[in-house]
């Protein structure tokens, strides 16, 4: 049997496709993004990026009520946005199977928090499957659809970054599309008004009890008895770490971590001398074992961040490998805006104007880091606008400093529109900058409702921001090219001075979308006075050379000319290309 190298995300897509899912909807977010991208490339499926995760889950619910199998994909914080439909979908149950794929980010490689999505399963009372590698990601996703229909409930499939972005060998298999039931009008099931919801609430408890009974015998859970002195309860990729670190111990591998099968867990605990739980993020399994009256042993493992085989070996007092001396004192290498990034001039200007900037999430969050240091807050997607309004209400920035909310195009579509609506509705006075770089850049260049590029390249249309913003009631709306720094400054000053809500749209494509580059620049060392203004743009191509004069790395420079505009000495001049090989 030939096996393909698939990431966990690709395997989830393969599993959904094999299960006959015909609709997929999601919103990008690391580490979940490739699941829907991969699903969208398969034959016989419809897939879309929705403006946000709540809408995505609602699209999926509609498809399910209409009889089709459907999958929603999102990162952990996306499930917060989709939580509202989730909780009630547990009541209604499904038509065609619903799988919600959620990818967590322990260690916060690309996220603003480390929330453990497993808690949502217990909170909303929906089953939770946790595959441990790519092969299981495929199989569990397929099974998740069957469980969803058999038990009439949406199923969460949870991944973490080391499953989503790890690759392993997978046997793929065929697609089988199940027979579809016609939509049946059924007030008691689909319309959750109090009287009907009360009935479904009771029914939910029955379904969860049935699922717990199913968990006792399902092949998703497995007991591996080896040495009986130590028994580990775990799930997800942590299982792989345990097998690597402690090949001799007994393991209860839980593929379904909500609801837990009480008899299976108790019998495992009885077969071993000491039972331990090993898990990342929250003590989720630990708490559930305690509820069953089992007291797990304590281990010295980190309470936050990621685990690894080494951390587990250490917790069991095993010999440490011989180590080379680590190299201390190296400079950190934070991510940064690319050369030619259209966000850069906006932040350089905001810094110049001493604005207090309530920020948002995207590539532009990098504007918070030195040397730009021009963003004061970042909480969750869409927060910039509500926060700008709240801060200006209390005059929190002081008399002299303007409050500016800064938000990307995709983020504005995701959850910024309502914030702006609020500001106008309630007579606010903050300034808003929409950074329209024509793409959802941070997560790897997805289309969005603003640029009108759809996931499967279906025809759409661009959403014009200016009329939308005006329709919300904003009187002062201006659009500038962010690469023209003088216009950015003039337009920003004007917007700040305006009495009432003002919106400045800065529009230029993401630097990574620009294929043709003008000639790069170089520094005329005789003209350079080492004033440092260009350095403070934070362009990766510009550094301080000897005697603190500026130096431009021609291999990185894309010739955007931002630095030329800030240099008062005419010291930045044209030069030839670096590696003169033409288009390769």
């Amino acid at each position: 049997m030939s096996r393909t190298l698939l990431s966990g995300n690709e395997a989830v897509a393969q599993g959904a496709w094999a299960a006959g899912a015909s609709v997929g909807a999601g919103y990008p977010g690391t580490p979940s993004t490739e699941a829907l991208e991969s699903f969208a490339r398969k034959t016989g499926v419809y897939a879309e990026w929705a403006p946000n995760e709540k809408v995505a889950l609602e699209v999926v619910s509609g498809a399910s009520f209409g009889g089709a199998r459907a999958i929603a994909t999102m990162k952990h914080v996306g499930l917060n946005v989709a939580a509202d439909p989730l909780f009630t979908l547990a009541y209604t149950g499904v038509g065609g199977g619903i799988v919600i794929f959620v990818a967590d980010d322990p260690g916060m490689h690309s996220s603003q928090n480390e929330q453990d999505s497993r808690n949502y399963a217990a909170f909303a009372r929906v089953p939770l499957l946790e595959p441990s590698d790519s092969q299981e990601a495929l199989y569990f996703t397929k099974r998740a659809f069957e469980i969803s229909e058999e038990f009439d409930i949406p199923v969460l499939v949870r991944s973490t970054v080391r499953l989503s972005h790890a690759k392993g060998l997978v046997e793929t298999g065929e697609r089988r599309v199940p027979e579809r039931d016609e939509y049946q009008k059924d007030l008691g099931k689909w319309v959750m008004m109090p009287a009907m919801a009360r009935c479904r609430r009771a029914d939910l408890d029955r379904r969860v009890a049935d699922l717990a009974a199913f968990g006792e015998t399902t092949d998703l859970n497995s007991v591996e008895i080896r040495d009986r002195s130590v028994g580990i309860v775990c799930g997800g990729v942590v299982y792989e770490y345990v097998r690597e670190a402690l090949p001799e111990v007994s393991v209860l591998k839980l593929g379904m971590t909500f609801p837990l099968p009480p008899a299976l867990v108790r019998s495992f605990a009885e077969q071993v001398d000491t039972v331990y739980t090993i898990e990342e993020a929250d003590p989720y399994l630990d708490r559930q074992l305690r509820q069953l009256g089992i007291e797990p042993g304590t281990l010295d493992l980190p309470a936050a961040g990621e685990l690894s085989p080494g951390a587990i070996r250490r917790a069991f007092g095993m010999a440490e490998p011989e180590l080379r001396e680590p190299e201390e004192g190296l400079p950190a290498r934070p991510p940064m805006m690319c050369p030619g990034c259209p966000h850069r001039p906006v932040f350089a200007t905001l810094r110049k104007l001493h604005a207090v900037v309530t920020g948002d999430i995207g590539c532009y969050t990098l504007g918070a880091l030195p040397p730009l240091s021009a963003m004061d807050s970042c909480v969750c997607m869409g927060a910039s606008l509500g926060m700008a309004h709240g801060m200006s209400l209390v005059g929190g920035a002081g008399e002299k400093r303007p409050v500016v909310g800064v938000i990307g195009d995709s983020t504005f579509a995701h959850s910024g529109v309502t914030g702006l609506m609020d500001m106008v509705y309630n007579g606010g006075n903050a300034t808003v900058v929409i950074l329209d770089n024509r793409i959802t850049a941070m997560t790897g260049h997805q289309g969005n409702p603003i640029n009108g590029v759809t996931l499967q390249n279906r025809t759409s249309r661009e959403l014009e921001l200016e009329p939308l913003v005006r329709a919300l009631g904003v009187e002062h709306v201006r659009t500038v090219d962010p690469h023209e720094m003088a216009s950015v400054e003039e337009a920003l000053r004007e917007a700040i001075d305006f009495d009432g809500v003002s919106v400045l749209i800065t529009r230029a494509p993401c630097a990574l979308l620009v294929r043709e580059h003008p000639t790069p620049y170089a520094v005329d060392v005789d003209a350079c006075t080492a004033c440092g203004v260009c350095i403070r743009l934070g362009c990766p191509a510009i550094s301080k050379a000897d005697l603190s004069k500026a130096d431009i790395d021609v291999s990185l420079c894309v010739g955007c000319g931002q630095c030329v505009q800030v240099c008062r000495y005419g010291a930045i001049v044209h030069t030839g290309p670096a590696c003169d090989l033409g288009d390769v």
Partner: protein
Amino acid sequence: MSDVVTVMLAGVGGQGTILAADVLAKVAAAAGLDVKLSEVHGMAQRGGSVDTVVRFGERVYSPVTDPGMVDHLVSFEVIEAARRIHYVKPEGRLLVNSRTVQPMPVLIGDSPTPFGMEAVLADEGAVFIDADELACEAGSPKSANIVLMGALSFGLGFDETLWREVISARVPPKTVEANLRAFELGRQACERGECEL
């Protein structure tokens, strides 16, 4: 698990470590081995410090690794090699692209420029290869990642034709020739003894 080989590819986001790791993993799979790969997407790809781990052998469990467990560290950049030196087993191999990309705190003068990194790495037994230069010679400055795979291949024992097949299938069609040349140049540099331990 002692037969499992762990390779770490380190570099700066955007340097092509992910594609190189994918090629290596596919070569190992084509050779009939079990393989796992772990990479980092997202924020760090915007010029941050990145690494990708590829592990292959009879049966591989963990996709990630720990300090002191890496058999081959291939670094696309000098500072990133130094940052991960303690991951490499004492008897492990260190292959470093002789190129330094200064991080932002250095560019703007917030952190001192690290000096003598090459000497530190050489002391640790590192072998240097000018992958960017060889990539230009191969006809595509973007093929430095494949030059490094050529150099790595010399120490791994997989059949050269497997590498060529996987590279041809994996890189953009227009760049196949340049990438095969890049692989060859990297491998030859090692064959000539320029990257021996």
